[in-house]
């Protein structure tokens, strides 16, 4: 399996988990999956506002972004403090 194929599998797994966590509608799942495939996971999280999905679902994605960013910051601080 090539490196790119492995990355695609990882990406599919992340998209699937994200849709489960966020409990998105079927049509939004498709839009989110397409956006992650085109933009990559990091740029996807900086482009949430442009997604053509319900505001409520957008808010849940923003909530997920906030939690993962806070978690990363918390880890940085605990590693920096050791």
């Amino acid at each position, binding site marked *: 399996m090539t490196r790119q194929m492995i*990355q695609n599998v*990882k*990406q599919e*797994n*992340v998209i699937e*988990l*994200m849709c*489960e*966590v*966020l409990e998105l509608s079927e049509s939004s799942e498709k839009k989110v999956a397409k*956006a992650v495939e*085109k*933009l*990559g*996971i*990091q*740029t996807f999280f*900086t*482009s949430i*506002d*442009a997604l*053509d999905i319900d505001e409520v679902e957008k*808010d*849940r994605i*923003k*909530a*997920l972004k*906030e*939690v*993962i960013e*806070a*978690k*990363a*910051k*918390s880890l940085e*601080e605990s590693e920096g*403090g050791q």
Partner: protein
Amino acid sequence: MAIKTKYSDSFFQSLNKLTGIPMSKLKSYAKENNPFNILEHPGVVDPNDRQLEKINKLNEFIASYNVLKLDQENEKITFKSPNDSGKYFASLLGGVKDKERFLVAFLDNSNSIIELRTVSQGTTNMAVVYPRDILKMALANDCSSIILSHNHPGGSLRASNEDVALTQRIVDIFRPLDIRVLDHIIVGGYSFSSMAENGVLPSNKMDVANYDPIELTAAEEEQAEYISVDEELEL
């Protein structure tokens, strides 16, 4: 161990939205502990089965996300040419026919995207752009430059006189702040045109900054030179 980070209400709201654990429980636990312990040891907040399932899924997502993020670290989008920005905006606005949307990408000093925001979403032939909103977002993002983009639901790629005038007004507002307007991408269908590439991006002349709302009406259907975007976009 002392807790260094003070978590905002918005953070607890986010955690509540994703796990279903009541805000009061989350805040009460976080008074003395790191709230992320809740994800690693959910028992500390005595979750019900549904909440536990959601916490486990969230943990699984965060772990997979971190691995993928490392893999894609070098694939962060940096705008090096009008083609890069055109492909990016066409991937977001391509095929939107029911309404006119105006997006702004806020960039750091290496032209990497900090955040993308929708600043206006109008009808099929009109959107209203409030420059003060763009200004607020730019300051909040501490950006070095911005790229504007909107779609023409009719499919035209030609920058109308109104598009040029709107861009000029935004250039005039941002110039004193040393924030450059790098380009204005117009998306029609699945194609795009770049005002910078076409030589119609207003210069940095210092006009009187005008913060009144800008009405953006439908552009003429006249076709200008454009770049096709393949179905599979490579950014």
